[in-house]
């Protein structure tokens, strides 16, 4: 029983999230009674649908960040990639100083509107911590361990596969956490490229001074961020051995 105790907070957060996604629409009249803001007719939004769009944008961009970030990171560790390391280093630093909302607007003239432009913009943003951590996670492995692995007769690729990647995993997962949180945050802005999602609620609430709509979106996004953060922390600990 004790072994499973650490999963309880995640479970509570996720259950609460799911419950709210499917019941907020029905609860709205009740909430408006409580927050008595006389607005006349309030537009109605399909929260499950918006959440789905939101999740697609957030997780798709995070997944792409992971795949691309890992490949670039590993490429930087090969002999050929070492030449590119300073360039990638500087470039990623520059990208990080670019505001997320600017990045999202920037892709519209290039790629048009829709889900994919948003995903691509967020991927460009989320890929950076993963590249960094792959490189530093692998470079920080104890030199003796690599020497012994080589001395025991592992080939270069076997060392990468059996030693370097497993030992860099905790650092990479921790970067994945940062990247995922940044993608979730970024996905709220994805409305501006026409990817819709929970950002629609925020936008509508803002333009009509409707606190309830803003609150609904904010609570859901918060719960999702907290739950994913907790999940990945548990995963991170699972792969840490020192």
């Amino acid at each position: 029983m004790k072994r499973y105790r650490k999963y309880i907070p995640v479970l509570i957060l996720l259950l609460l999230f799911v419950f709210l996604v499917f019941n907020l629409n029905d609860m709205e009249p009740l909430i408006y009674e409580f927050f008595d803001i006389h607005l006349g007719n309030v537009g109605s939004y399909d929260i499950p649908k918006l959440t789905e769009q939101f999740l697609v944008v957030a997780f798709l961009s995070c997944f792409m960040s992971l795949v691309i970030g890992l490949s670039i990171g590993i490429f930087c560790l090969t002999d050929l990639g070492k030449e590119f390391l300073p360039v990638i280093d500087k470039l990623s630093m520059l990208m990080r100083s670019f505001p997320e909302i600017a990045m999202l607007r920037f892709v519209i003239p290039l790629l048009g509107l829709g889900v994919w432009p948003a995903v691509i913009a967020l991927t460009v943003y989320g890929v950076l911590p993963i590249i960094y951590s792959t490189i530093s996670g692998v470079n920080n492995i104890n030199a003796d361990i690599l020497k012994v692995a080589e001395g025991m007769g592992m080939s270069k690729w076997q060392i990468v596969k059996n030693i370097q990647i497993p030992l860099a995993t905790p650092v990479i997962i921790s970067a994945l956490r940062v990247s995922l949180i940044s993608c979730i945050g970024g996905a709220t802005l994805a409305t501006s490229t026409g990817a819709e999602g929970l950002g629609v609620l925020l936008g509508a609430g803002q333009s009509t001074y409707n606190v309830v709509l803003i609150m609904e979106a904010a609570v859901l996004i918060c719960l999702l961020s907290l739950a994913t953060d907790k999940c990945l922390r548990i995963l991170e600990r699972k792969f840490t051995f020192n």
Partner: protein
Amino acid sequence: MIVFKDVVKSYNGVIAVDKLNLTIEQGELCILLGLSGCGKSTSLNMVNKLIEADSGSIYINGKNINEFKDEDLRRNIGYAVQSTALFPHMTVSQNISIVPKLLKWKKEKIQSRVEELLELVGLDVKSYMGKYPNQLSGGEAQRVGVARALAADPEILLMDEPFGALDPINRANIQNEFLRLQEKLHKTIIFVTHDMGEAMKMGDKIALMGKGKLLSYGTPKQLLMEDVNSFVKDFMGADSYINMLERYLVKEYVLPDNSNKVLPTISEKSSLKEGFSTMINHSVDKLQVVDQSGKVLGVLRVDAILNILNEEYVRNEKIS
């Protein structure tokens, strides 16, 4: 048999190993001894090509190491280092089975080999197999390190200060166990250390190195008696004769006990050096020898120690 022939290695113009010529016979434990930076670790790492020699060649059983593929060469040489460098994400049994797996042994064979090795190095098979390195003490980790080096039953072992990071008690234990193992296995071993006592105790031969050059090579006894090279003498130090006593075990010098006097006790497994220290500590000239269960076996007299020094190291008398 390992032969170094005119081996040279330099780093950025600084010579680390200077025309090393050294022959290590089959089944011998050869100690590379010297101060740090004398080139002993470099020489060791050139045998499994972790470091490439600039010139000269190294032969294993008459074959130049460059004729082997790097990986094949390394898989057939056991390798252990000071920090143990056990892979932290693998269990003890996974750590030990790395080289057998690289050599594509069958699963059952690997499993039985792991069990055999854990028993060999004195660790309980059931409780240690699934442990991770961070759950082991320093001594236990080093035992696993030795087991890992022995995993594929290589003919040659390279050990780079393998017991350097242990406390004195653990260290003496593991040294004794390793010597016992070596009596059974007869591996050809290159063993790097900077510790005189360890060299005297473990080495069949000692190669004393300084500034990349081989200064002296021979059995510990030969080295002890040498007076040609003053560096050798300095390095051996004033306590070298006492260190020599590490090579003798108390149990071989037990005499029957006929007095009932109460004496300090010593275990039959200790070395004469420990025996001698105990005598000095208690200012007595004999000790009661007991076995592990505490049963009295007899006495150890200081005469036994003096006899060894007189008989084996005659030159000592001439000087004094």
